[in-house]
């Protein structure tokens, strides 16, 4: 799916979870993500069986998903991804929870929530500036 050429840039406003600026290609899912056990910290591949992003890599993407789930150890998984150079460059959530919030803050990954993620599609170029999200 492509947006028609006439369509304008869209700007959305959310709530800052982890401060920062990032721009890149969106990787989007409408399913929750469990980082502990669900994402390989060495390759950044989503390994949760049956997940709609199974086999995709989160590295260098703006990762867009409704919310995190699963063990609180998942915060350390995000940190491991970051240290391995495998982390997403930004995170956009519908409703952020503890695992992703803590993971994003300790890994210094810009993270914003309270965003209507139905407006974002995989492949969109997305710009995060603290609480602002611009879809180009």
């Amino acid at each position, binding site marked *: 799916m492509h947006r028609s050429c006439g369509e304008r840039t869209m700007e959305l406003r959310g*709530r800052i*979870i*982890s401060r920062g600026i990032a721009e890149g290609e969106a990787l989007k899912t409408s399913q929750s993500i469990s980082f502990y056990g669900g994402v390989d*910290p060495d390759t950044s591949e989503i390994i949760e069986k049956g997940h709609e992003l199974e086999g995709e890599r989160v590295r260098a993407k703006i990762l867009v998903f409704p919310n995190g789930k699963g063990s*609180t*150890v998942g*915060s*350390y998984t995000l*940190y*491991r991804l*970051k*240290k*391995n150079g495998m982390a997403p460059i930004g995170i956009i959530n519908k409703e*952020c*929870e*503890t*695992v992703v*919030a*803590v993971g994003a*803050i*300790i890994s210094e990954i810009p993270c914003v*929530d309270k965003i209507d993620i139905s407006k974002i599609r995989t492949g969109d170029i997305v710009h995060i500036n603290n609480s602002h999200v611009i879809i180009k």
Partner: protein
Amino acid sequence: MFLTKEEKHLLKGEKGLAVKKSMEILVALGNIYGANRLIEIGSVQVAGVSYHNLGDAGLEFLKELARDGKVKVLTTLNPAGMDLKDWKKLGIDEDFARKQNLVIEAFEKMGIIISCTCAPYLIGNLPTYGEHIAWSESSAVTFANSVIGARTNREGGPSALAAAFVGKTPCYGLHLDENRAPNTRVDVTAELVKISDWGALGYCIGKKVENGIPYIMGIETATLDELKSFCASVVTYGSKPMFHMMGITPESEKYKPPKATITIENTDLERAYKSINDDFSDVDLICVGCPHCSIKEISEIAKLLKNRKISPNTEFWVACSRLVKQMADKRSYTDIIEKAGGKFACDTCMAVAPLKGRFRSVVTTSAKGCYYSRHNNMMTKMGSLEECIEAAVKGQWS
């Protein structure tokens, strides 16, 4: 969320990087869950200690925090991935031990008590009724909220550390009266005879109330060890880290039983055993102490093992804190258990030690222990302490 002038300074980094990061975490969590302010806490329990779960990145994170992070309140530690003294005896390799020791060093530098136990209430981190605390370790969180009536959310390792560095936690969730009310009444008609029945009961209730707070009726008495086991199980299998037990837990008197009712009968417990107990007879490992053994449990183990021998085909582990073992040393329980061929696994446990690939099957008194052993690809059985000792002596479950 409202911040005082002093808290704003902390957030700006005026008291160093560890405190700044900690404030960022606490403020983010406060905003997400609608806290209106930070509240002072009496103590912290930190999970995320085993190198097995942390990896090199986790170790690096802790080292970074330890540079200028110092805890402000009594802070105790969850089990590590090995016995910090006798790790060789438990078959831990040297590389793992070196890394685990670096993790412990970082915690020590932060001013944390290296208690390495999941039952901190047995060794001096015992909050009082109504006290606000910030604990991780789901079984201890459930015990503190329910059995003691202290108040804590289920923190993760980093958010517990953040609370320890600031001495405060955001006021939301189980810190507030309105979120501690029960929503399902549970009538227990099942007979609770042996310690593992409490694990089976936790399994049944946890699965049925799914993220709710049960109000449990029909239980007349419960010992510390029985409640400890129940806490571990009910939260592992699905409840919030909080329950009320009529006539037993202190806040049960504040509430009327909710209308929505479920019943737990003998047949429910039987089904729980069926789903937890795999089909095998040769036992590779018997482990007692999930949550960590009390001194009373160790005395019972010693009584059952006196003048007997553990089968050479199996291993028998008693998991407990080092402090509780020191009491066992003085009462000759340690001698009796070690003479029989048993091993003490101090500072560690079956849920966080690197056991994957080492044992095919485990027998334990603990429903939570079975849950985590399956993550380690082991077949599991749960039984009474007597059944565990029999399995250890015979090397077989019969």
